[in-house]
């Protein structure tokens, strides 16, 4: 029997017994739905982490020097924590010393920040926001484009001018329907002039990246970002960007050597500062991704095994119910393999239809999750193909035993059964 004929028969079977088919397909449908949804969330998060997170939060070919790591996974021991708090802060002189040894073309930026800083303007009431005090090539490293106005000039950085650049959301809040550039904004009691508004940055995991204010490190903003233990030259983070990816690891080594000598570390002593690249920042993500991928395999696998068992049972029932039909077909010349193929095709078609429904629901679920929660989702084309193919394979495996039972039926005994 040709395949098209067998598929037609199988689809007819589904149409005739809609409700039964629905329950038959449930397992495979749920399995494939899980597959699509989990894969698209993992894909979506990967894309976010690897493109947006790195691009927006860190920059390419960039590494950061800090007192201790900013992102941690797992528990930090008390001892570790005590060691961290004993470490010296990074200072502006570290920045100068490092930039002196690194090749020309290397960019650097120092920054400190504070959250919940009270800000107000003539046009809107007070709001508490995040404020960065920066020095060096901050806008270049962050790849922060200015949509309106200009970035902070190096002159302003050097003199600590009362100039600020606003995030897109901040500008909209404090200057509704007016051009913010050239207008005044009051930050922690000091008046600053807005010189520019950054281009919209979007969000990562639902957190807006457009709620910030950037001003010169040497302006009064520095006091706002002061932390216990800070000296007058302390900074939170020093970001360094190499001109090329190839130069980065050497620059990191030179930076490490410079820092160690400035901190007077003996060779046996460990670093008392942290250096991280976007890659190391993503290490924690790789770990999460691993767990999610495991779930992405395990959840569908369980459903698919259940689905396969349901299909096998339904197919055994179908063979029993259609013994007479099998007898007729055999009497008319169907060989074992014809009957085998008929039932395998039927079970594969059934399962593939279930998988197709699962793909559709999975895509819908991914879109709903992406729209209603901070979790991003990106549907991976390969997962659709894998989902449908999985359905077919599950159907074939589940159909082997029932189909071979059907194929081995004795034509005379089978035809007598009504």
């Amino acid at each position, binding site marked *: 029997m040709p395949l098209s004929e067998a598929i037609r028969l199988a689809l007819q079977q589904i149409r005739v017994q809609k409700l039964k088919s629905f329950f038959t397909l449930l397992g495979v449908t749920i399995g494939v739905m899980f597959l699509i949804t989990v894969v698209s969330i993992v894909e979506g998060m990967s894309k976010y982490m690897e493109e947006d997170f790195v691009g927006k939060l860190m920059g390419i070919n960039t590494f950061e020097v800090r007192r201790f790591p900013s992102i941690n996974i797992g528990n930090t021991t008390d001892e570790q924590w005590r060691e961290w708090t004993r470490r010296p802060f990074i200072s502006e002189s570290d920045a100068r010393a490092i930039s002196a040894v690194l090749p020309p073309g290397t960019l650097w930026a120092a920054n400190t920040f504070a959250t919940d800083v009270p800000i107000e303007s003539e046009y809107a009431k007070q709001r508490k926001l995040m404020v960065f005090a920066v020095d060096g090539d901050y806008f270049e490293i962050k790849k922060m484009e200015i949509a309106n106005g200009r970035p902070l000039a190096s002159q302003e950085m050097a003199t600590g001018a009362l100039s600020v650049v606003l995030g897109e959301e901040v500008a909209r809040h404090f200057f509704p329907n007016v051009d913010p550039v050239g207008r005044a904004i009051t930050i922690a009691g000091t008046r600053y002039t807005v010189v520019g508004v950054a281009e919209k940055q979007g969000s990562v995991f639902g957190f807006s990246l457009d709620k910030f204010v950037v001003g010169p490190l040497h302006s009064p903003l520095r006091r706002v970002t002061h932390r216990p233990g800070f000296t007058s030259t302390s900074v939170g983070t020093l970001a360094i960007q190499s001109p090329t990816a190839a130069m980065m690891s050497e620059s990191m080594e030179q930076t490490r050597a410079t820092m160690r000598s400035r901190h007077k570390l003996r060779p046996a002593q460990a670093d008392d500062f942290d250096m991280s690249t976007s890659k190391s920042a993503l290490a924690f993500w790789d770990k999460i991704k691993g767990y999610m991928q495991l779930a992405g395999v395990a959840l569908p696998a369980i459903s698919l095994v259940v689905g396969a068992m349901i299909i096998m049972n339904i197919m055994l029932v179908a063979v029993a119910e259609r013994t007479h039909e099998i007898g*007729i*077909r055999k009497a*008319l010349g169907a060989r074992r393999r014809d009957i085998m193929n008929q039932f395998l095709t039927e079970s594969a078609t059934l399962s593939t239809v279930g998988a197709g429904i699962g793909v559709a629901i999975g895509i819908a679920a991914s879109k709903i999750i992406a729209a209603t929660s901070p979790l991003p989702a990106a549907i991976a084309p390969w997962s659709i193909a894998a989902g449908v193919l999985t359905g077919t394979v599950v159907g074939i495996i589940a159909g082997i035993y029932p189909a071979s039972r059907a194929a081995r039926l004795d034509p005379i005994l089978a*035809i007598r059964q009504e």
Partner: protein
Amino acid sequence: MNIDAHESALSTTAERQVVTMDAGATPSEDWVIVTRGIRRDYDMGGEIVHALRGVDVAIKRNEYVAIMGPSGSGKSTLMNVIGCLDTPTAGEYWLNGMLVSSKDDDELARVRNREIGFVFQTFNLLPRATALHNVELPLVYAGVPSAERKQRAMQALERVQLADRMDHRPNELSGGQRQRVAIARALVNTPAILLADEPTGNLDSGTSQEIMRVFEGLAEQGQTVIMVTHEADIAAHARRVVVLRDGRIASDTRREAFAAQIAG
């Protein structure tokens, strides 16, 4: 009219020769069916039922043979063996010069598909398929492409005057029409032999007559027909009557002699 008394008396010398040839000897081309010492035993949980106890029969191309005998005498078992639905426990069965008694399952399926048209008492049509599709089925398994299949199935339905019912499902057809669909299905692959096991057993007498006329017409066109019946007036249409009793041939009679018996 004691038919049973004439034990094989009227089978020809040629027939006696071909069935008694040495085992394994290929019959000449004239013979479409030759059985030699066919036995069929059923093991009923230790107790052996001997449905056929050594049947020797030889049938030529274009013959119209009726098989008669009391219930349980082995008529259906013999038809199933001849129709390659069943394999004998012992003995040889030659169909069209092929020794089919030693063939395996799939080879038998092929023989059923190419050489045999089987008409059952209970029609055995696929209930959800249209008349046309039912008739197409043997061609599906013969690997005939769909357009040709359809055309040949329609021609077969025309031969039984049912072309106008081709889109009907079995439950939309009368008993006689269903049996005619089954006959069309049996004929569609131009089989060497047309077998019918009590084809009118489920029909009223008027419809039975109608179906018998179909078989007669086919026989007249040269189709080899072997039919099981327990009604003498139906058997009277055949040119030869084989009577079974207890799994053996009790008599094998030609039409002229049979008619004479009924008359005299």
